[in-house]
């Protein structure tokens, strides 16, 4: 089992992905926490733009972070399989190339929020993705996420 994911590692992601010019967004609860949502999460969820070039950069960044990638895994990331789950690195990481409920990366990128240098999906998109996923854990967290979104918007 990988170690816990913490804020310092979010910063490592930011640095490594910038170094390799990867277009990505924090999404899911890790994204919400970076925006100030008071909760816990056990991994990082990244929405990565699907293209061969971006996938190649993503592979480089992941290797720099300490993830062990086989050639097959690298190819899947370059190809942009919809969902890649990595538990063989310094922390757990989900790469999502086509999250539920979000029309496209371009739309999410246009809506994004930059906070402390972190590119993060807009809370509306995080909520839309959880609504579309419809998992029990999402249904539990949505009322509070919506309330946080309303508070967050009022503060801006």
């Amino acid at each position, binding site marked *: *089992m990988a170690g816990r994911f913490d804020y310092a590692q979010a910063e490592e992601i930011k640095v490594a992905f910038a170094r390799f010019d990867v277009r990505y967004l924090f999404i899911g609860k890790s994204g919400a926490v970076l925006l100030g949502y008071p909760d816990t*999460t056990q991994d990082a969820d990244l929405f990565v733009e699907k293209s061969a070039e971006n996938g190649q950069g993503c592979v480089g960044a992941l290797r720099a972070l300490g993830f*062990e990638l086989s050639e097959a895994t690298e190819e*899947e990331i370059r190809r942009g*399989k*919809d969902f*890649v789950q990595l538990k063989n690195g310094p922390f757990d990481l989900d790469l999502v190339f086509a999250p539920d409920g979000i029309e496209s990366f371009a739309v999410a990128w246009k809506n994004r929020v930059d906070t402390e240098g972190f590119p993060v999906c807009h809370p509306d998109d995080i909520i839309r993705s959880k609504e579309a996923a419809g998992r*029990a854990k999402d249904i539990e967290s949505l009322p509070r996420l919506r309330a946080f979104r309303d508070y967050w918007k009022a503060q801006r």
Partner: protein
Amino acid sequence: MKYAFVKTYKPVLDDAPYRSFDTMADYRDWCQKNLPDWLGYGRTV
């Protein structure tokens, strides 16, 4: 916020170092069929 990330063991989900799915629907189906209900990854709708 800097201490908001914690880690606990999640049966099945944490038992493989890597997995991937061609579609999100495939991933959701896998979660539904393989993960304990109490982890909360099953669809409710």
